[in-house]
């Protein structure tokens, strides 16, 4: 039993400790980033690359070159955007962020990013179609550190068995014929991701753009044609019903079972495809009337949030420069094994080392940013309606025509256009 004499001091002490702990929590968040003069903070969406990995060392090397230490934190893609917004609100933005390209315009819209002009970065060698995702109203808010995109992987064993020549697939009609061929031979046709998240829109866009449709008119006849292509595949049994809920990862798992002739997937699966139990190959996604369909660009931009202490920009610029030289791009591509450099010089260098990536380089060259065409922050609103329409049509809740008409109406209301 504690005597009364002791009780008061103890209670006060407990209260003080508790209050102190709370104050401590509140206090520490203030000093989080933008710390000391020789430590620069860096956020990226690659939690799979841990401390001590090639990537972490590469980031640190760029810091050493600029004469500072880099404190790197990795978040997953969606939470990175939220974290960036929160930090900007609290005035504790990191010095450098690597950010998924469609999110760049969202952050730029808040005024939390510096333009490449302010920082004095040279964007002239960057491929215009890749840089476009970071351009809003004539200003550029970052530089792509690499690009990836979608193409059509095929199972060479199945195609051989069904007597289908992948080179014959040049437009939708020949792709349909190939799918009919492989399903007639008793195989499964194609798998893709129709999930109701950004991934669903990402996968649908090559067909949408390949038909000649435009994101400002979701209910155009071309758009309907693109959606009818997908619903037709599910109806005819070329694609499994599960595509409605598939993420790109699930799609890839399905392809790796060896049952599917085709899978729509991205550059990041190159290594995994090489390690599959069967022979694989890739072709570019065909457009409706032949030629290559523009696939959406994936990949991160390197961006520099606004700092109160503008004297930090010089070093930030040197870190960014280190990541965006031709050698820097190729080194990044090598570290990740799937990143295509965004400059022609970098692409040539990469092809010298890896001639097998040629299809990907050409796919990236004809790719198109989702937020390009000055869609900017309207894109997420339109995209949400687009994936909803894809879901409605694939699941049979509405016809492609009805689904897209509803999507256009909702998108127009959301964007106010």
């Amino acid at each position, binding site marked *: 039993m504690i005597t009364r004499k002791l009780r*008061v001091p103890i209670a006060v002490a407990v*209260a003080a400790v508790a209050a102190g702990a709370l104050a401590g929590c509140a206090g520490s968040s203030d000093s989080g980033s933008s710390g000391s003069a020789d430590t620069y903070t860096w956020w990226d969406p690659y939690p799979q690359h841990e401390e001590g990995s090639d990537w972490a060392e590469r980031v640190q090397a760029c810091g050493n070159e600029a004469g500072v230490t880099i404190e790197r934190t990795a978040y997953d893609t969606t939470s990175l955007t939220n974290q960036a917004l929160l930090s900007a*609100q609290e005035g504790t933005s990191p010095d450098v962020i690597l950010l998924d390209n469609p999110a760049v315009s969202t952050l730029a819209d*808040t005024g939390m990013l510096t333009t490449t002009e302010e920082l004095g970065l040279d964007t002239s060698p960057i491929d215009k179609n890749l840089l476009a995702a970071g351009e809003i109203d004539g200003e550029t808010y970052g530089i792509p550190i690499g690009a990836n995109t979608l193409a059509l992987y095929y199972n060479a064993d199945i195609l051989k068995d069904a007597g289908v020549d992948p080179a014959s697939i040049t437009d939708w009609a020949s792709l349909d014929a190939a799918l009919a061929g492989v399903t007639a031979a008793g195989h499964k046709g194609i798998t893709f991701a129709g*999930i*109701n*998240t950004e991934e669903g829109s990402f996968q649908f866009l090559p067909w949408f753009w390949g038909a000649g449709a435009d994101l400002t008119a979701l209910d155009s006849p071309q758009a309907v044609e693109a959606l009818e292509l997908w619903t037709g595949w599910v109806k005819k049994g070329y694609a499994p*019903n*599960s595509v409605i809920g598939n993420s790109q990862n699930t799609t890839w798992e399905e392809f790796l079972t060896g049952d599917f002739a085709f899978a729509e997937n991205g550059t990041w699966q190159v290594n995994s495809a090489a390690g599959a139990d069967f022979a694989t190959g890739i072709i570019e996604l065909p457009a409706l009337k032949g030629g290559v369909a523009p696939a959406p660009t994936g990949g991160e931009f390197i961006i520099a949030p606004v700092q109160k202490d503008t004297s930090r920009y010089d070093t930030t610029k040197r870190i960014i420069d280190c990541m965006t030289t031709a050698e820097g791009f190729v080194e990044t591509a090598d570290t990740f094994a799937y990143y295509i450099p965004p400059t022609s010089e970098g692409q040539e260098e990469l092809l010298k080392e890896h001639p097998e990536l040629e299809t990907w380089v050409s796919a990236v060259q004809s790719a198109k940013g989702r937020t390009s065409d000055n869609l900017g922050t309207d894109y997420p609103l339109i995209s949400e309606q687009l994936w909803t329409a894809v879901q409605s049509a694939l*699941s049979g809740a509405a016809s492609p025509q009805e689904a897209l008409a509803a999507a256009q109406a909702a998108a127009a209301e959301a964007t106010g256009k």
Partner: protein
Amino acid sequence: MTVSATDRASAMHDDTVAVTVPPERRRSALRQGSRWVAFGFAAPLLVYLVAFYAYPLIRSIDLSIHDYNVRAFVQGDAEFVGLQNYIDVVSAPLFGKALLNTAIFVIGSLVFQYAIGLALAVFFRNSFRLSGVLRALFLVPWLLPLIVSGSTWAWMLNSDNGIVNAALQAFGIGQINWLTSPDTAMTAVVIANIWLGIPFNLVILYAGLQNIPADVYEAAALDGAGAWRQFWSITFPLLRPVSAITLLLGLVYTLKVVDIIWIMTAGGPANATTTLAIWSYREAFGTGQPDLSPAAAVGNILIVIALIFGFLYLRTQRRQEDS
């Protein structure tokens, strides 16, 4: 600390001195001191309540009556719009559907969770060999991380390769597109959620059963009441207070379920499983552009719904006590 006279007298003989000699003057000083002591003890709790309950609630209301787009969020200059977000949300085409989905999800889940949980609790009331082990096994859904059980359900219910469809096909029933058809997706997530909620109902109802005295059953058995009659005339009525709180807690939990639905269908296909909670989550975090104000408005509507049921519960409880 209240010490009765007899206690004090007996304490005199012991050596615990602390409470023995309270002269008048010191006592009043102590009383004043004890107010500070009381405050000192309450302070951490008060700070905790304000920081973790009041502030988030106020912030949520604040978000919902301003127009916070991402720009306003960062720059902190959101325009005051009053109830406009609530009007927008309620008049949105999705509202009716989301409300109906929420009702179906909650009622469907609660009815089966409670019925199955109660049946199991009654079953386990009679201890038998291995009953402890079996009861522990029923807790597994509770212990598994939701991402694990959610993903497992999604795999099992997969249209083409799921084990559920494989089993159904063995009995000659054709492929059911559990998660990918708007007609069955709600059923699928409700089934998964029932499975998740059974342990909670089982544990609380089982504890409630322990409080029903055994002699009531003995008397009933002597009067010739069978098991069925005993359940309806003794177990069920005596369990009513516990049932009420179980259902209320279940309701609050189920109203705000996001994770299991998000993992299995993300609210799809074609919004067939979009409940109010999912809608709120998607507005805030599910798209490329966080839309915090409508999300907060939907969230606050959910809080109000939960509160209404809370008050209903309190009222019925008070009436029960009065009678």
